[in-house]
Each structure stands twice: as C-alpha cells, then as structure tokens.
C-alpha cells in the first residue's frame, strides 16, 4: 500500500506574512494541513520527483533520473518561511500513462492532490502536452466521480512548473506584469478544462511557478500552501 505524504505542521513564527499582500491565517493553514495525505501526479518530466524531493528533504536534486518504477521517499522536517513542515514518507510515481493504476491507488487515499503540468508547453499550445493533460484530467475526473458519496473529495491543485522556460519567462517578469501574465495562463482553455474536470474553482486552485532553483521551488510551494486557506 503506498504511503502518501502525511504532513504535520507546526507554527514557528508569527501568523502574518510580512511581504504578502494578503494577510494569511497561518493557524488555519496549519490546521488544514495537519495529517493530510498528498498525492503528486503528472506526466513524465513535469517535476514530480523534484517537488517530492523538496517536500521531503528541503532540497532540489542536482542530478536526476527518470522515475521508471515507483520508489519510497523518506520524509523529514524542514522549515518554509512561516511554516515548519514535517513531511512523512511518501511515494514517487512514474509519469507514464501505464502507471494510472498506481496513480489511482495514491489518489484514493489522498486529501490533497497536486497535479503538475508544464506551463511552458501549454503557453506554446503544444498539442502533445495538451493531449496528455486532457487524458490525465479525464482520469482524475472519473476517479473523483467514483469517490463521490464515499468520502470528502480530495482538494486539487493544478501546479504549473517550468514557468522559467515559458515565453516570456514567468520568473523574471517585473512584479507589475506578473498578475496579468498569470491570469492569461489561467485563462488558457486547457487550464480552464483542468479546473472544470477537477470539480470547479471552489475545489481547485491553480498555482504557477518554477522549480529551476531552490528559491523558486520554495516560492512555488509557499504559493501552494498559501492557497490551502482560501480553499476552505
């Protein structure tokens, strides 16, 4: 049986993010993340292993390997700005569609599902990337339907990675242009379709960024956890 990520969160600092425009209620976020199981899904090469490594070790791997068989990722504690996260053992799954049975096993146990996709490809309207996302989201939609009436549905996060490779580069845009660009990406038909298949915007959040460096990954993960509150 796969052991998805179980997060136990401990507050270490004050309940406000000094630089955040919106004041976040960390108490509420902490409560909502406590003991939650996370499934990280997505196609080959989107960044699943990178994100799992960051969540379980606090580091972004320097060299990497295609995840051809699912593997154990030993969890441990790490600090993330206002949060001190304790991530337990998890599983890193392959991204090929032949692994859907394994995805489902993890999905069925998860409280939070992170579905990763490459925004650089979707901004370019890369048909192959769009088809794969559509295929994955159809699966997720059917698994959600199966789970309905059985237990509270997992919350979904559509996580856009490789923003640094998008044209224009999401990570180097001036702050005043960031919002518009992110809105444009969120408005892409394929992203809209993802949100709709995942149960609509009340159950699904879209977080965009990059995992090229540790700092960018930290910002992305911070962005994800900040959205936990607004989903309640």
């Amino acid at each position, binding site marked *: 049986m796969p052991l998805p990520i179980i997060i136990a969160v401990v507050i270490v600092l004050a309940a406000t993010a000094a630089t955040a425009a919106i004041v976040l209620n960390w108490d509420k976020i902490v409560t909502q993340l406590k003991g939650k199981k996370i499934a990280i899904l997505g196609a*080959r090469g989107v960044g699943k292993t990178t994100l799992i490594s960051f969540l379980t070790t606090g580091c972004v791997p320097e060299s990497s*390997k295609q995840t*051809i*068989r699912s593997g154990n990722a030993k969890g441990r504690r790490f600090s993330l700005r206002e949060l001190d996260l304790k991530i337990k053992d998890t599983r890193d799954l392959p991204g090929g569609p032949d692994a859907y*049975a394994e995805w489902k096993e993890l999905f069925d146990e998860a409280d939070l599902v992170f579905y990763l996709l490459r925004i650089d490809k979707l901004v370019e309207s890369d048909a192959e990337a769009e088809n794969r996302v559509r295929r994955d989201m159809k699966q997720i939609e059917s698994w959600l339907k199966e789970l309905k009436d059985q237990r509270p549905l997992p919350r979904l996060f559509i996580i856009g990675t490789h923003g640094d490779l998008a044209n224009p580069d999401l990570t180097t845009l001036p702050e005043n242009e960031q919002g518009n660009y992110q809105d444009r990406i969120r408005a892409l038909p394929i992203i809209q379709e993802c949100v709709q298949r995942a149960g609509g915007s009340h159950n699904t959040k879209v977080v965009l960024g990059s995992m090229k460096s540790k700092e960018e990954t930290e910002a992305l993960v911070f962005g994800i956890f900040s959205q936990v509150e607004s989903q309640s």
Partner: protein
Amino acid sequence: MSERYPELSFQAQSLDNLALDPMEVNGCPLEEKDEEERERLVQRIAQVSKSGTRVFSEGSISAFRLGNEFILEIPSDQKDSAGRIAPIICYGHVSRESEKSWPDEVVSAIRDFANRIGRGVSDQAAVRRGIEAVKKNWISRLWVRIKEWLSALGRKLRRHLALPSLSP
C-alpha cells in the same frame, strides 16, 4: 537479429518523455494497444519495488527481490531530453538461477533489449554483480526454507515416533 529471452520482461522510458515507453513481455514488444499487459507489467514492477527487499545497490544500479520475482534497474548510457539518467528495468522470475549460464544470459538479454531500443549499457560487470546478488539472495532464502522444512519434518517424525510409546 538478437535473441529474445522468454522468461524476462523489460521496460524503459522514452528519451523524449513523450513517445510510447518501450516494453517487452516474454520476448514480445508491447504496443500502445496492449494497454492491459503494459499496466500489468508496470504494476508487477511497482509491487517488487514497493514490497520487495533491495538486494543490490551500486551507483545507479539496484536490484530488488520479492518471493521469486526480481527487478534490476540499470542506467543506460544515454541521457533523456532533460539530461536525466534514463534507466532500463529488467523484470523476471528466478527459476533457472541454479544453472551456471543464467547470470550471463540475463546480462546478454539486458544488453540486447537496450540495443533493440537504441541504447547501450556499458557497465556490464556491475550488472552481473547485481544479478549475482539476486541469485545469492534466492539461494540463501531457499536454504532458510529448506532448514525450516527439515526442522518441521523432524518435529513431525519425533511426534510420530513418540506417539506409540505414549498410547496405552
């Protein structure tokens, strides 16, 4: 044409991370339409990886055993489009491992599969060490089982021999 080995299966991930992942079961390549068989192979590999014992780890080569199933993960010489190590997995059952030629046959089978999908595996000596570890582990488990079986037999025999003397 290179020889195919009926008792072994193989999987690799395409180097562009887009094309169909090459797979072979019992010497036959699996196409996109062979969905069920492809999923079954992935699930068996996952099961051995999740629940099996790691019997070998050297660099990026590792081997796992679960009962009489094993997997060997070997990096191919090629990197994928993201510059990542692109491994090959060999899955099989240990049934002929007592035959002297078995380790060499598995090494050749892995090399042949790699060649068929346009890859190479240079460090064949390390691959062989991995296979030897799979085999050794099986022999030591077999030995444990034989000992358990012998002691159970001994207990039964003792009970059987002791019974007549206990009866009136």
